[in-house]
């Protein structure tokens, strides 16, 4: 049970990092399904950075920069050019898939790199000694602590600050924002770049935090799951947290059940997290908090 909980809280980290970032860009009125690609890019550069410098932390910074640049490309087309955000998102994912495979083969596989330095667990004195909870919560890597702290920080920014109010307004009625002097374009750029940075960190956590290696296509839908978590969480910080935890339970269950050698095919268990995602989205139709101008480019006339 303890192992299971530890794995759930680990699984939830990349989802949380990515979806808490995306929450802001979604509320500001953009739809970025390129998260998958951003995470993948982050995963590769996290591993590359760690391989080059020996430090997973430097790797994480490089990962964040790389996926931010990729998101900048998305933002330029989606916000400035007013291109279709869905098409651009697909394009980003396609670019990221090709890019990561190429770079992986050039720099990592061809040099025979199998493992890179990963994040080390940092046990918090005293708290980590508490039975069960200590091992589950207080013996984590740095990005994991960050993810859980970020839930509260995100809630605070989202609901208590001037910036949060502007972001929430930008996706609801951009013209109205314009008439009170809010720069909608800048808000959308800002939130998209932030979500890109967070997706990069989430990717780096997957390659250098969970596995200490990069493998092609290793994100395997977790970017989309993070996106789904924002919708399933009804676009609120704690809602996002809850849905990330539910999805993480699904993922944790998947590995458990695979290992348990049940008569049901192992492929079925692999489907489980995705199945939970789909079912959750079908059951939970309350989109009362969804931004009204979601995915509609704002062009000043």
């Amino acid at each position, binding site marked *: 049970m303890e192992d299971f909980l530890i794995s759930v809280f680990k699984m939830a980290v990349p989802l949380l990092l990515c979806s808490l970032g995306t929450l802001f860009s979604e509320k500001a009125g953009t739809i970025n399904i390129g998260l998958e690609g951003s995470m993948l890019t982050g995963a590769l550069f996290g591993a590359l950075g760690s391989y080059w410098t020996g430090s997973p932390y430097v790797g994480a910074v490089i990962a964040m920069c790389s996926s931010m640049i990729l998101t900048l490309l998305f933002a330029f087309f989606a916000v400035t050019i007013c291109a279709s955000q869905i098409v651009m998102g697909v394009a980003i994912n396609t670019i990221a898939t090709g890019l990561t495979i190429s770079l992986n083969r050039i720099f990592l596989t061809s040099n025979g790199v199998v493992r890179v330095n990963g994040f080390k667990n940092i046990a918090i004195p005293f708290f980590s000694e508490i039975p069960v909870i200590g091992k589950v919560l207080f013996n984590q890597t740095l990005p994991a602590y960050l993810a859980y702290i970020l839930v509260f920080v995100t809630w605070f920014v989202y609901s208590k600050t001037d910036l949060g109010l502007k972001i929430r307004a930008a996706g609801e009625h951009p013209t109205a924002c314009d008439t009170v*002097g809010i720069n909608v374009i800048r808000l959308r750029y800002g939130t998209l770049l932030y979500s890109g940075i967070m997706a990069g960190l989430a990717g780096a956590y997957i390659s250098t935090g969970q596995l200490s290696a990069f493998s092609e296509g290793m994100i395997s839908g977790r970017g989309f799951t993070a996106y789904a978590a924002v919708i399933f969480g009804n676009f609120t910080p704690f809602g996002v947290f809850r849905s990330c935890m539910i999805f993480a339970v699904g993922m944790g269950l998947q590995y458990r059940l695979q290992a348990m050698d049940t008569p049901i095919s192992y492929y079925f268990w692999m489907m489980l997290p995705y199945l939970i995602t789909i079912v959750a989205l079908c059951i939970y139709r309350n989109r009362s908090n969804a931004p009204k101008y979601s995915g509609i480019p704002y062009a000043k006339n």
Partner: protein
Amino acid sequence: MAILEMRHVSKYFGKVAANVDVNLSVDEGEVHALLGENGAGKSTLMNILYGLYGPTSGHVYLNGEKLNVRTPKDAINKGIGMVHQHFMLIPALTVIENMVLGMESNHAVLDLKKSAAEFAAMAENYDMPIDPWAKVSSLSVGQQQRAEILKALYRKANLLILDEPTAVLTPQEATVLFTAIRRLTQEKFTIILISHKMDEIMEVCDRCTVLRQGKVVATIPVSEITDTGQLAELMVGRQIKLTMDKKPSKPGKSILSLQNISYKDKDMVPKLKHVSFQIQAGEIVGICGIDGNGQSELVRCITGLLHPDEGKVLFKEEDITRVHTSEILRKGISHIPEDRHGMGMLMNMSVNENLILMSFRNPPYSRRNILNWKWIRSHNKKLVETYNVKTPDIDERAGNLSGGNQQKFVVGRELDRKPDLLVAMHPGRGLDIGATKFIQQRLLDERDRGAAVLLVSTELDEIMELSDRIVVMNSGNVAGILNQAEATREQLGLMMAGGK
């Protein structure tokens, strides 16, 4: 003393002139009306003042100082506030969140409780109380407008621009608004009121500047205006008949008969309670009442968009209570819906395509499911001409037309089918005087042709002028049925409010 002066302001969009050499002078503490038909350049002029557009030439002076506003933010900082016709409030947020949104004086962390207390005190002070914690989406249209005005005041505006403020209001809400306007001028606020309704200008304004085709035609004190015909003439540029040719009605046999109609909505709130009346061929029955007293539901029950829980709808003695809408329309009922954009037309399709929505299944529009575009085009060209629809050509995207021209082609489409019953809901809402009169005259023509007409309107004048009989509705009940000749405004107002 002039607080605002616009000197020789011109604005061109490409080659199209929206404003030509406009001079406007507004005194402190006055209510200054900007009167003009749709497209006369009123909104453009005010958008220049508010920093949404830059003028092509000319200057604006505020308090004798040359004004250089490039964005709404500049205008707000200079004390100019604008209440747009389509409210610039965010429905998903609370009133107080809307108030502080985007203000430069905000701290990074908001103290909404403190702001709400200040705001509530200010609203109270101007006799416009409102709950700061209410979600905007839960407010009535009148309250939302109040919130918009307060938003401008909260930003320390002393010059308020109100763009067609009564277009969305019921007569009662309009009265409340006028009281608020008078209260504000007592406090030395200056108000510019954009309008095309002459009655409200006479009621609440001090001076009036008339715009026609982008140019100023006249600026006159309202006290010097003797009759509204004079204003209308200035506005339209030709004599306009404000009274209509209305011959005595010759009612024929019963066309529509409603028997004991009751309807509850999905929250089980009764919207219609045992409504019964009938309409004969060759008469206009006007339904008057404050918006939301069951008019929408009644019209929907007749057109088959809703099925009543109880009662019967008889059309020419045939029960159509549970008949499908397409079938009902085919039987000879035309419908000019309340929500033009939502129900009356398809914004992204051409005028040509919009005009055949009701008939494209029938010959000669189509045969064996193949549309006869050649016939349709020539037919629609005639229709557009007959109904005076101003459009570059019939392939223009319908959404690009002005509201008046959109309504004209909707009316044209519905009347072209020569209906036995015409159901018209708010046919003149948001239209200028020329277009409204045109459409009203068409309704009278239909009546004289022998059609039965059901007119639903919140404008008492429209009801009084056009109807032969008047049905007053109040919270889903028929509060009374009167002959037009016997009805007085006071009596109708009382019945609308629920008295006897």
